């Protein structure tokens, strides 16, 4: 028992020092800078258009777990579900030459990409699914990004603990060939728990960077004035890393 309290005491001292460092200005900026170094290292080590692995149908998980928001609790959304999302619109706006509002039919008529990929949650688990939809790059090129656009913000219909879900990526991830606006999972229309009718797939990043219930794609110059300013719901709310590639 004595040894145990010694270990616990030593660990408390160490933990105290760690929390002092984390709370200090230099400490917290160092902790956040490390995330940036990982992003830069990943980018330096792989070609821009290098792909994550794609699997075969045999690898598909029997059930694709829904996590985070698994429904949207509004009458409006329930009406969309009842109506098979016939009136759902995906807005493309912000720093683009031609703002657009795409219907589900518009999205289905674009060239499609189907990919069987692994979804990795920040918690640690993985599920494999087959996603189908147009590449985000096709939509962004059609809208015509302005020179001043640096980030793409994804707006969502769902709320968690009263705040609107949103996410963002830089243009490198937005223009990646495997970044698609998925409307199908495993050959069927997206189930509600997985983000019906539209979900972003950003395959080189963790699950929270793959927002569901997509309502708008917004090109912006900076993330500073968007919601909490950190580029995403979990980033604002709990300090999650903006670069979710690790």
């Amino acid at each position, binding site marked *: 028992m004595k040894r145990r309290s010694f270990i616990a005491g030593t660990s408390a001292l160490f933990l105290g020092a760690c929390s002092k460092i*984390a709370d200090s200005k230099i400490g917290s900026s160092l*902790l956040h800078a490390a995330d940036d170094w990982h*992003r830069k290292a990943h980018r330096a*080590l792989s070609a821009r258009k290098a792909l994550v692995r794609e699997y075969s149908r045999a690898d598909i998980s029997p059930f694709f777990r829904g996590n985070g928001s698994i429904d949207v609790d509004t009458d409006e959304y329930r009406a969309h579900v009842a109506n098979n999302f016939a009136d759902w619109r995906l807005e493309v706006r912000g720093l683009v030459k031609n703002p657009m509002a795409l219907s589900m039919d518009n999205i289905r008529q674009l060239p499609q990409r189907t990919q069987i990929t692994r979804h990795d949650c920040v918690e640690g688990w*993985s599920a494999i699914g087959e996603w189908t939809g147009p590449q985000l790059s096709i939509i962004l090129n059609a809208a015509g990004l302005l020179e001043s656009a640096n980030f793409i913000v994804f707006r969502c219909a769902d709320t968690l603990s009263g705040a609107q879900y949103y996410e963002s990526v830089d243009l490198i991830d937005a223009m990646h060939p495997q970044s698609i606006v998925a409307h199908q999972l495993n050959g069927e229309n997206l189930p509600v728990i997985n983000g019906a009718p539209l979900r972003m797939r950003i395959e*080189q*990043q963790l699950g929270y960077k793959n927002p569901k219930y997509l309502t708008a794609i917004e090109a912006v110059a900076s993330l500073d004035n968007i919601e909490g300013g950190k580029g995403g719901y979990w980033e604002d709310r709990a300090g999650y890393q903006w670069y*979710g590639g*690790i």
Partner: protein
Amino acid sequence: MKRHALSTRIWHWINAVSVIILFMSGLNISNAHRYLYWGQSGFSPDQAWLAVPRFPGWATIPGYYSLAGARDWHLLAVWPFALGLLFLWIAMLTNRHFWRDIRTSPTEWHPKAIWADIADHLKLNFEHEGAKYNFLQKLAYGLVLGVFLPMMIFSGLAISPGFEPAAPWLVEILGGRQSARSLHFLFAWATFAFFVVHIVLVVLAGPIRQIRDMVTGGKE
């Protein structure tokens, strides 16, 4: 000549701090999803080969459950850890520390010699003539430096989706992303087991001299 080279001493302490932070923040991350799987995917307890116990706050960084906070620490400490290990290997191979002190010879693998070594350890006889380290020490240091710590880095890279396009083969040779995650966990505990034995033996062999020599270098 010093007992420990400057490069070894600098690495030792940077590594000690990094590994402790990585291990304790890793326990916090483990609490986020306490199931381990083999293969590429897995997300529910019925697919798991192991349900990991929940680690208490005094053993984790931060001292309360925070996946975001623990990941901050983990992703920071991995830089001095990985670059430090690379530095040590370059230093060990160039200053001959590896070839002279850690590499084993075939005769040392003879069962009789190994038994004699174990018997010496059990008698707490830490005098060994000639070579700097006895066989068990060489084996332990060789395993930690050559297998456990590098495996922590490789399995960690393999569970990062953003690293995957750079080296998809890494995920494959480790048996899939969830296998890599299981290996990350197993090698973390293997490293912890070494840490415990290392501390116990330092205490038994005379902790003040051992720690002093790892700071000042000591005398051969």
